[in-house]
């Protein structure tokens, strides 16, 4: 049964971008979706690189009837942003921070750590390649993979292992943009006739519109698809691509899935279920 959040607010925290107009779009769409459901007294977004900033969000939710604020990072993984930047900018001192007004701000786990991620990745894979036999298909989950303090590679590995255990696809593999195994080696890594590629990111942008397609060998045209607003999403609508003797199906970033809104709400509910546990145990129980 869904918890009653009518005296609570929801704050969705995103990265945002100063160059990519599509970075914040999923956050705003998920917020609008949750707002329409009237689950919370207020629903707001804030960003690291866009407005409103996290510092601006400190001024939100001034209605005295709002006793609790649930802060949900729309990030794929625990890492630098969830552990350093967000707590610092939002002045969070722990799992729950009580403000001078008595309002409690609860810091929830990032959306990417929710167990439903596995199901969403599978659904996205089926939707992008409808009717394609899974046993003759390799599923490749794309992570960023950098040496930043970012555990996105860990999150992607966790999901690949979870999907592999289901034994639905001929192969389930991790690939990364900036570390091995590289996206560009997809044809060597995947042995099947069909290959499905799903970027495990919270929004579309240069990576999903252009960088990954180029690494896959998809012809994005002169200047790339990302430079042309109207054609930015066209790369997801040309499936299958016939490359290296395979049928390649390329999906948009997972975070554009409207079902992410449900996961954001779930993360607030999960906070309440694990209220009494220390932060580390909660993170572990969410990813178990």
């Amino acid at each position, binding site marked *: 049964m869904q918890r009653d959040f009518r005296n609570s607010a929801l704050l969705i925290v995103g990265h945002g*971008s*100063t*160059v*990519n*107009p599509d970075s914040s779009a999923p956050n*705003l769409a998920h917020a*609008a979706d949750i707002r329409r459901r009237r689950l919370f007294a*207020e629903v707001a977004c*804030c960003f*690291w*690189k*866009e*407005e*409103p*900033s996290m*510092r*601006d*969000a400190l*001024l*939100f*939710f*001034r*209605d005295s009837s709002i006793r609790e604020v649930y802060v949900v990072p729309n990030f794929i993984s625990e890492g*630098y942003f969830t552990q*350093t*930047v967000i707590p*610092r900018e939002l002045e969070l001192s722990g799992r729950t921070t009580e403000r001078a007004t008595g309002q409690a701000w609860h810091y929830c786990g990032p959306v990417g750590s929710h167990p439903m991620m596995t199901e969403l990745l599978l659904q996205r894979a089926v939707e992008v390649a409808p009717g394609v036999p899974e046993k003759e298909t390799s599923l490749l989950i794309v992570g960023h993979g950098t040496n930043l303090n970012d555990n996105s590679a860990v999150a992607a590995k966790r999901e690949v292992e979870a999907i592999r255990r289901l034994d639905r696809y001929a192969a389930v593999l991790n690939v990364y943009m900036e570390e091995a195994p590289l996206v560009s080696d997809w044809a060597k890594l995947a042995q099947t006739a069909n290959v499905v590629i799903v970027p495990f990111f919270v929004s579309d942008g240069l990576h999903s519109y252009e960088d990954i397609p180029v690494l896959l060998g998809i012809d994005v045209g002169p200047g790339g698809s990302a430079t042309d*607003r109207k054609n930015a999403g066209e790369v997801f609508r040309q499936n299958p691509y016939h490359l290296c003797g395979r049928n390649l199906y390329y999906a948009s970033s997972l975070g554009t899935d409207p079902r992410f809104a449900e996961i954001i709400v779930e993360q607030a509910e999960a906070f309440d279920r694990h209220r009494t546990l220390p932060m580390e145990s909660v993170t572990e129980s969410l990813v178990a």
Partner: protein
Amino acid sequence: MRRPDASVDWLEVLPCCIGEIRIMHRAAGSFTVSHRDDTGLEGLAVYRDADAAIELARYDDAGRYRSLKTAPNLRHGWLFVLDRLEQAREVIEHFYPGRAAAYQTWRSGELRTTPLRETLGRQTGMYRASAKISERQADELVGTFCRSDGGCLRTILWKRDAAGASPSTLLPKVKFDPEFDQTGRDEAARPLLCQEACNLLVAAARNVVKGGQ
């Protein structure tokens, strides 16, 4: 949407200007929101859904992405016709995210401002270097980056340091005056208040330190 205390409501008196936007009361109880330059123009694209402002706020007249919503480059040619004042609030929130809360907090006398040095000093990771910006560089950067004619329409309330130094000697005094219409139109306007340097300014400070653009 929050229902603000009437005494700190920036839409308490209409017509009202906020940044480049004009909000007006129409006959039959409806409200309009438009670009101040477009007041009274015919042939504007009419919107009735407040969420349409999200996309309008995203690009300037030339179709370029607006990374700073309070920059003086709001696109033209649109008109919101709305049944309720709450919808007008939503439109303004999309055009100027977070500014209503800053205004309301300021009017309540509870707005805390953060000196630039403190904002830069708490940065980590790639932005840690921004704290190394010199006084002269900071003076020049803020004077250029935050100027109302071509930079940002916010009214700066923060100081450069804890001692209360001016953010920039290159900016006119009215840049720090909430009573001043930062668009230069000299109309009564509600201010877009800046209580703390934004991430774009922090990033620009880092670039200065790193010798970039």
